[in-house]
């Protein structure tokens, strides 16, 4: 592991004093509105906070919503990708002649036709749309066919002759480290190291030495994948003017736009990316994929539209899902429950390419430093390349794994000092308006209320360590970012832009690059405009994620949409609101603040008879007074983060906080774990629509539960006699996502801390609530059975092995004795 040391040596001084921050700079300072961003435009909210419908809801439930594969263009051809059958192989030659000779086949392209390197992070561009020299995992794309039908394209693939030189495959973290000479990815500066980060804040060893109890644990988080129900699909249409239109099931139209133009050698102004309705993404559609480049190239070559739709199997190869992580934690605590030092060593299995891996490696440490105070913190994370599909950002990118390990550590530490685990979390609460040990600014923070809510709702005090053998409850907490300060490519432009158009018809149209992937960001835009301009939701149209029509928003990742798009939209809407109420105030001779816009009516309280008109008429008066009505709004993050290399990664304008209690019912005879219920309390700042927030909370808790008990994106080892690196079962039969019968009851408890910088105080809700599911279930299993599940998934064979490995019953009994003999200091009332 000399490699890791060298990398560490390049970091000038990894020990940085905590509390320092980036220099303040005014960049695109947002406007200041009376009452602040958190206030209602009038006296109270009329749209925000209500259980409203979603904008696109009826289209989705009536089957009218148009997803990418629902589109069909005249003369459209169908493309398919040829994929490598070897985990690691040099491509000696590709002979497409037999395929090209097949009737109905129009073109075959290979790596030579798309030689440009790309990658979502500009520092690590290590992918090609089709591998030119070498395939790096089973399923890596090496050629593409366009044909009249999917069947013809598929049959043509089998006629392409590829000569491979098979190379040794690397399928595990240890192999990657032990065999730097089996280089998976030539862009790696050394061996198979994708990224190494070593950061230390405070004197960790001294703080740990100064603890009453120290717990060391090794944890394994198995890889998992997003498995959106919609497979990836793209349709490219290159026209006679040299203009490329690409429809794609992406969640980052803007980044796709940039990379498409570059890889295809087109000016960006000649490329348009349109995101149709997307059928789930969860991070799995947050970077460009082979199908988009290949459809585009084939369309450019043939002058016809080309559609490529991935099979479910290909979705597993596209992957970019949860990284497998091996994590060693050493954590200290004092008798009073104070956490002292945290020391983490993390190895990350990245698969064949970088993807967001640079960020993942930082996130594996940077996002752990709240909601608890830490006196000192060190993490050393290494991401390695292996011959497997590339991992990337899955819901809770990079931080779900360490959160699992750390929240289990806290459970063990609490037991070691004889304190209730909720009480330990409470005592270490970092507080509002605080700063983390690694220099992250925390503003609003509703974590204590989250803990209280789950404690009360789950009847924790009556249940914890008090239920019969086999049944138990567990708790965990977490925090997550509301978007990231770290911009994927360096620029000083806004992260999010909105254009708003009002016209004399009484309609408002919002144009925004935001990407709705089911979380409802288009509806968020509409709610804000409705609130500010007094419109009903039906009078608002949202045009989103079309790079020709909409100003840039960076897309749906890192839980940024509500916060950033919402802020941009709020400013655009308030600008126009100012014109409208100003016009009416002038006409009625009142103060602008006296004009009320709500429910389609403009009015004042002082004379509701005469000072009253429809909002439509108000728009007409305003248009007559000010000319054509339009406005823009944008959001740019303030400078945040620690003043050290990587200090902006993990910096966010606001953090959400979550606590879960999980209840399990275990079968000690088989090892089956049934999660009966999860109580989810989440501080989302303010729920712009509680239905949507609850939906995100429940969906997140479900997805964490699924990873805890069922899901494994795993591959045959390099030592396998056949099929090294082959996915164990790339289908929704073998990759088991929970059914309606498996999923626990989920109870959402919304906590509103009202963030000073969020739109009306809102923060994220889409990813944070996933984190505590896994450790809460692990801790509940300990309460139920007396075993510590430190490896995922908690499958029946694994649980049964743990039960047999030691005297679980005695451990269980001992934990109970301790509980009954101890009254936690925090158990007030």
């Amino acid at each position, binding site marked *: 592991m000399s490699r890791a040391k060298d990398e560490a040596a390049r970091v000038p001084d990894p020990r940085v004093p905590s509390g320092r921050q980036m220099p303040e700079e005014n960049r695109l300072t947002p406007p200041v509105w009376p009452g602040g961003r958190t206030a209602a435009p009038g006296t109270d909210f009329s749209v925000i906070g209500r259980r409203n419908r979603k904008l696109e809801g009826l289209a989705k439930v009536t089957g009218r919503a148009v997803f990418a594969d629902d589109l069909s263009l005249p003369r459209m051809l169908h493309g398919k990708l040829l*994929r490598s*059958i*070897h985990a690691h192989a040099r491509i000696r030659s590709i002979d497409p002649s037999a395929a090209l000779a097949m009737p109905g086949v129009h073109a075959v392209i290979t790596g030579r036709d798309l030689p440009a390197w790309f990658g979502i992070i500009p520092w690590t561009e290590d992918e090609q749309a089709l591998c030119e020299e070498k395939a790096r995992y*089973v399923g890596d794309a090496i050629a593409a066919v366009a044909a009249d039908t*999917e*069947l013809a394209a*598929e049959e043509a693939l*089998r006629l392409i002759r590829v000569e491979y030189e098979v190379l040794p495959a690397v399928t595990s973290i240890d192999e990657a480290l032990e065999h730097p000479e089996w280089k998976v990815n030539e862009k790696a500066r050394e061996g198979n190291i994708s990224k190494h980060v070593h950061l230390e804040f405070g004197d960790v060893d001294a703080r740990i030495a100064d603890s009453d109890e120290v717990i060391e644990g090794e944890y394994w988080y198995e890889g998992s994948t997003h498995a959106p129900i919609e*497979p990836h699909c793209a349709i490219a249409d290159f026209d006679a003017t040299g203009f490329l239109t690409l429809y794609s099931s992406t969640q980052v139209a803007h980044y796709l736009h940039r990379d498409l133009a570059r890889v295809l050698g087109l000016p960006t102004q000649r490329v348009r990316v349109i995101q149709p309705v997307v059928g789930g993404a969860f991070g799995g559609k947050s970077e460009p994929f082979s199908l988009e480049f290949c459809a585009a190239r084939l369309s450019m070559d043939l002058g016809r539209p080309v559609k490529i*739709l991935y*099979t*479910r*199997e290909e979705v597993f190869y596209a992957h970019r899902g949860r990284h497998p992580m091996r994590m060693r934690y050493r954590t200290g605590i004092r008798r009073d429950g104070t956490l002292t030092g945290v020391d983490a060593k993390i190895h990350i299995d990245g698969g064949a390419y970088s993807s967001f891996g640079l960020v993942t490696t930082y996130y594996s440490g940077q996002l752990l430093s709240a909601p608890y105070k830490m006196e000192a913190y060190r993490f050393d994370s290494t991401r390695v390349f292996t011959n497997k599909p590339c991992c990337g950002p899955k819901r809770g990118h990079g931080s779900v794994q360490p959160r699992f390990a750390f929240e289990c550590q806290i459970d063990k530490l609490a037991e070691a000092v004889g304190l209730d685990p909720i009480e330990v979390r409470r005592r270490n609460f970092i507080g509002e308006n605080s700063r983390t040990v690694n220099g992250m600014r925390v503003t609003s923070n509703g974590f204590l209320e989250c803990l209280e809510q789950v404690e009360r709702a789950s009847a924790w005090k009556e249940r914890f360590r008090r239920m019969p053998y086999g049944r138990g409850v567990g708790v965990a907490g977490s925090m997550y970012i509301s978007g990231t300060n770290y911009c994927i490519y360096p620029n000083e432009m806004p992260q999010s832009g909105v254009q708003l158009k009002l016209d004399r018809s009484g309609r408002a149209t919002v144009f925004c690059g935001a990407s709705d992937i089911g979380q409802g960001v288009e509806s968020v835009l509409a709610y804000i405009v409705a609130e500010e301009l007094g419109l009903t939701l039906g009078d608002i149209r949202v045009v989103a994620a079309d790079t020709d029509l909409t100003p840039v928003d960076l897309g749906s990742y890192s839980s940024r949409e509500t916060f950033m798009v919402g802020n941009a939209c709020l400013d655009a809407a308030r600008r126009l609101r100012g014109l409208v109420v100003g016009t009416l105030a002038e006409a009625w001779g009142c103060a602008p603040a006296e004009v009320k816009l709500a429910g389609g009516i403009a009015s004042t309280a002082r004379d509701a008879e005469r000072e009253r008109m429809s909002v439509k008429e108000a728009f007409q008066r305003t248009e007559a007074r000010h000319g054509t009505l339009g406005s823009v709004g944008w959001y740019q993050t303030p400078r945040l983060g620690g003043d050290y290399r990587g200090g902006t990664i993990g910096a966010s304008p606001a953090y959400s906080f979550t606590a879960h209690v999980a209840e399990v019912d275990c079968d000690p*005879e*088989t*090892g089956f774990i049934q999660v009966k219920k999860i109580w989810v309390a989440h501080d989302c700042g303010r729920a712009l629509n509680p239905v949507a927030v609850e939906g995100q909370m429940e969906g997140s808790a479900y997805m964490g539960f699924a990873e805890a008990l*069922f899901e494994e994106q795993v591959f045959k080892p390099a030592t396998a*006699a*056949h*099929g090294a690196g*082959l*996915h*164990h*079962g*790339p*289908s929704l*039969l*073998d990759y*088991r996502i*929970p*059914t*309606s*019968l*498996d999923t626990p009851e989920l109870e959402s408890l919304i906590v509103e801390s009202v963030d000073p910088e969020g739109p009306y105080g809102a923060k994220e809700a889409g990813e944070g609530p996933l984190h505590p599911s896994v450790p809460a279930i692990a801790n509940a299993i300990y309460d139920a059975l007396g075993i510590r599940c430190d490896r995922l998934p908690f*499958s*029946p*064979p694994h649980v*049964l*092995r743990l039960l047999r490995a030691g005297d679980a019953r005695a451990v269980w009994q001992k934990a109970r004795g301790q509980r009954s003999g101890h009254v936690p200091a925090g158990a007030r009332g």
Partner: protein
Amino acid sequence: MLTLPAFEWVRPRTLEEALEFLAAHAGQCLIVAGGTDAVPNLKHRLHDPAYVVHLSGIRELAFVRESADGLELGPLVTLTALSGDARVRRDYPSLARAASLVASPQIRNMGTLGGNLCLDTRCTYYNQTFFWREALGFCLKKEGTVCHVVPQGRRCVAAHSSDVAPVLISLGASVEIARSGGRRSISLDEFFVGDGIHNNVLEPGEMIVRVSVPARARGLRVGYQKLRPRAAIDFPMLSVAFTARVDGARCEEARLVVSALGAKPRVIGGVDALVKGQPLDEALAESLAQVAYRQCRPLTNVAYDDDWRHEMVPVFVRRAVRDAIAGGVS
């Protein structure tokens, strides 16, 4: 999407028409009823028939009839119909139970009794796409020469994965097989053979036309238990069917069938001797569990910890016997 290969299509209106066509094109046909097994397998290129003979037009084969001899079931009865039939639920509750546990509601609406009995054997190295199998290097059952479950194995060990078959065997059921110009009956136990490539005695041109459950199976104490990770959709990774005839307080005879292990459901040996004259109780459940544990050895054909599945054999046998002790299955 995953495409279907090209094939010709035949949809006979009568059984005779079907049998004639099968006889005339022996070895070139794939019989499809509900299609829930055959169609995914076609998409995986596991079969390459010239003709798909679709039985959906033969209404005469979708019957449930009571007779003095017992219950007669047509092969085209859907699994939903089977599990919901009042006579089946009353007289053969473990059969209704097994049918109700197959896959998902939609698949039970489509899938048929005959199809479930003739389900192609399953293996983690076989039920995959052509691409996947090519990357593996294919296997003994299809296009290849090696077995990935039993290295150096010469015989395919793909697993029998029907839910209803072990129960029907435990009930002593038989099947009637027809071909153009002839019929034969055989006990369901003998219908299956221990060859994963083709695990039943059907010859090209033959098909099941009737399943008979004997009248004497009414009143048996029964149990069925299925092991699967999820509560729906999944195939069994272990299934246990148990029946016992109890006279007064003592067992007269019993049958214990364990499946989803190899190509043929395993009828556990020595059970009659063990149970005869014994009370049907927890002690007997334990003895049966131990006998089954010794006789069963799960393999890696099912991609789930085989040692654990072995450990689950006695657990699930005990549970199936407990069903019977409790008076049936719910």
